[in-house]
Every structure is written in structure tokens, then in C-alpha cells.
């Protein structure tokens, strides 16, 4: 039974040694370790969280840039399409305009030519008239005595001049 009876002397030494251990370790031992490990844990957790948010941000950026690229591509296609359309209409309208222009010019040229011809006809006619007057004068002066021959001549000239006129 002596094992079950606590010895005062040993209890005294026990209290001394345990207090010694407690005082030293509670001040310089365990709190230091626990605090630093807790701090490290917190910093690791924070780094992980930061990395996660950065990842999310990056993913967002990527999605955004993807959408921007795809929309730009869409735009590009649309613009190209529009340009195609415009090109076609421009060409068409140019062709049309060119056609109109040429036909108008041809028309004008024709009108001009008509005018020129008429003018030249008039000129020729007046010239012919003058010539015939001259001829008539000469004939009159030279052949006034030969009346029948005179008349034939005049007729012949007149016929000729009318031929020329037509």
C-alpha cells in the first residue's frame, strides 16, 4: 500500500520541477512556436486565397479577351461583307453612269454632227447660189444674144444645182 501514499518530499520536488518547466516553457517555449506556426498558417492561407483570386481574375480576363476577339472577328466579317456590298453597288452604279454618259455623249456628238452638217449645207447652198448668180451673170453678159441656147444653159445649171442641194 505504500505505493498509494503520496510522499510529501517528492510532491515538493514535483511542484518545483513542474513549475520550473511551466514558467520557462510558457514564456519562451510553446507560445513562440504556436504563434509562429499560426502566423505561417495564416500567411499560407492568405497566399492560397490570393492565388485563387488571381486565377479567377486571369480566367475572367481570358474570357473577356476571348469575347472581345470573337466580337472583333464578327465585326471584321460584317465590315468585309458590307465593303463587298458597297463595292458591288459602286461598280454597278459606275457602270450605269458610264453607260449613261457614253450614250449621252454619243447623242450629243450626233446632234453636233447634224448641226454641223446643216450649217455646212446652208453654207454650200449659199455658195452655190452665189456661184449660180455669178455663172448667170457671166452667161447673161456673154450670151445675151443667143436666147435659146441661153435658156438651155440656165436650165441645165439649175438642175445641177438642185441635184447638189439634195
Amino acid at each position, binding site marked *: 500500500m505504500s505505493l498509494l501514499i503520496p510522499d510529501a518530499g517528492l510532491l515538493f*520536488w514535483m511542484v518545483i520541477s513542474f513549475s520550473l518547466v511551466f514558467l520557462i*516553457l510558457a514564456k519562451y517555449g510553446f507560445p*513562440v512556436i504556436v504563434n509562429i506556426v499560426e502566423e505561417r498558417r495564416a500567411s499560407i492561407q492568405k497566399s492560397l486565397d490570393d492565388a485563387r483570386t488571381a486565377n479567377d481574375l486571369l480566367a475572367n480576363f481570358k474570357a473577356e479577351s476571348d469575347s472581345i476577339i470573337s466580337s472583333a472577328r464578327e465585326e471584321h466579317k460584317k465590315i468585309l461583307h458590307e465593303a463587298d456590298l458597297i463595292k458591288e453597288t459602286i461598280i454597278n452604279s459606275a457602270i450605269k453612269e458610264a453607260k449613261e454618259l457614253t450614250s449621252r455623249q454619243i447623242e450629243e456628238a450626233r446632234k453636233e454632227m447634224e448641226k454641223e452638217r446643216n450649217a455646212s449645207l446652208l453654207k454650200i447652198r449659199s455658195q452655190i447660189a452665189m456661184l449660180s448668180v455669178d455663172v448667170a451673170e457671166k452667161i447673161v453678159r456673154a450670151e445675151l444674144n443667143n436666147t435659146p441656147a441661153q435658156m438651155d444653159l440656165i436650165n441645165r445649171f439649175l438642175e445641177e444645182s438642185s441635184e447638189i442641194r439634195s
Partner: protein
Amino acid sequence: MKRKIKILVSLLFLMVYGRSTILAEEIDVKQIVFSHLRDSYGWHIATWGDTHVTVPLPVIVFSKTTGLNIFLSSELENGKTYKYFRISREERHLDKVVEINSAGNEVRPIDLSLTKNALALLLNSIILILIILHVAKWYKKKPVDAPRGFTGAMEIFIMDINDNIIKSCIGKDYLKYSPYLLTAFFFIFTNNIMGIIPLFPGGANTTGNIAVTMGLALCTFLAVNIFGTKEYWKEILWPDVPLWMKVPLPLLPVIEIFALFTKPFALMIRLFANIMAGHAIILGLTSLIFVTVAMGPAVNSGMTLLSVILSVFMIFVEILVAYIQAYVFTMLSAVFIGLSRVEKHKQEVY
């Protein structure tokens, strides 16, 4: 491999034959086991033939008549008397230092001797302090690095106790108690492990001594009751039960106050009994070798082999127990502290 086994077996036989001639006398197993379990004034290391190798330790006694006396335990060896002091052989103060007064009666003085267990406690404390301070120094030097090797192992150990026992059992203000509980855990664990090591600085049955566990239980008792909340004391002295259980006979308060003391008492007995029993079993198994000498070489060598195998097994079990008992003591202390931190219950409305 086969040759090695052969050599080992023949060596075993040789030892047994050699011993059987030396140890002819009757062996008192009970005495051997008890003398190892008990505290002693000197630290007996080994017996070589007839010479005892014992480290003498200071005996410090205060007596009413002669005052303070300090002398080495070797002065009292083999029944010698120093001044009026000797080691008692009587049943009342068996194996304790007593003073013989003028009437010739044995009187127990106030005995603060640095006994084997006391010295072992101090040595183990120094070992523990050195280990923990070494680890703490590493952290002060490199606060952001992850430790490796021994420091890393200690970190896992310390943080496991801190997180899984202390934090989960006490709750929000665990930080106030964690230094005490960590100290208690590692103090018990170091002493348990050192108790298993059979060589000199170890081998003392410190945590298997009731005075040591009493000291620890006392600390937990103080930690629980000094910092107990108002609600905790109210639950003990005026619990929330029908009035007739409190007045006129304070039935429940009495039970609660009784429970106040049974909790640390259970802590004390549990640690003491577990470690003491483990030591007793190992000692008993070892004694098996010497007891069976008388039964002849064949039985003796067989039992020796069995004893060694069982002792190895028991030592492994004891390593486990060393951890488990430290764990249980710390956990229960944490639970008791957690119970003493109760907050006022929220009034439930139906």
C-alpha cells in the same frame, strides 16, 4: 543468418548455465518489483557481483530536535546510521528515513530529500526544456520557413496537441490555457518515455508515482477552479433543478462539490495506475528469467526467450501507453477547463 541465430542460442544457454550456479538462493520477485517501482534515496544502477553501483543522492531532512540535516544517501546504506537517522525497517515507515528520538522510537522528520524520482524529474525537466527551447529558437531564427527533421516532427507533435485536444476541447479562449496544457502533456510524455528507458538517466518510475501525478492533478484542479466563470460556480452551488433538490437538503450542490474533487482524483489515479502497472509487468516479465533458474536449464532458457519477446512487446505497448496517458490527461484537463468556462445559457423560448 542461420549461423547468427545458432550463436545467439548457444550464448543464451551459456548465460543460463553460468547464472544457475551463481543464483542459487531464493528470489523474492515481489521485493524486486516493488523496490523498482518505489522511490529510493540512492539511484541504484547495477549490481556487479557483490558490489552495488549506486549514485548517492542528498538526503535533506528537517527534524524538530536537530534542525536541518543534509547528507549523502550512501551514509545510510546497508542499515548504517548517520547521527540519529537511519532507514526504517518497521512496517509504519518502511524504507523511509527516520530519526530515533531519546525514547528510542522512530520519528519521521520532514523529508525533502532529493530522491531518485526527484532527481529524475529534474533531469527530465531539463531535457524537456532544452528540446522545446531548441525548437523555439529555430522558429525565432526563421519565422517564415517550414521546418524539417526534428523541428518539423516537434511542430507536428505540438500543433496536433494544440489543435486537436486543446483548441477543440476548450473552445474560444483556449490560448490562455494552451501553454499549461502543452507543458503538462510534454512533461508527462517525457517522464513516461524516460521511465521506459532502462539506462541511467531514465528508468525512474516518475509518472508511476502517486506524488507526481498528484502534483499534476493539483495543477489541473487549480487551472479549472481559479479561472472558472460565474456561471460555472452557479451551476455547482445553485444548479438549474427543481427547488426541492437544493432546499432544505442541498443534494445536488453536495454532489457537484464532491465531483469537483473526484475529477482531479481520477486524473491522478489513472496516470499513476497505468504507468505503474506497465512498469510492474515489464519487471515481472524480466524476473521470470531469474525465477525459472531453479527449474533447470531447459525450462529456464525457454522462459528466457519468452520473457525477452514479451518484454519487447510490453515495451512497445508502454511507448504507446506513454503517449495515450499523456494524451488522456491533457484531454481530460482540457475538457474540465472547457466546462469551467461555460457561458450563460441562452433562454430558450417555446
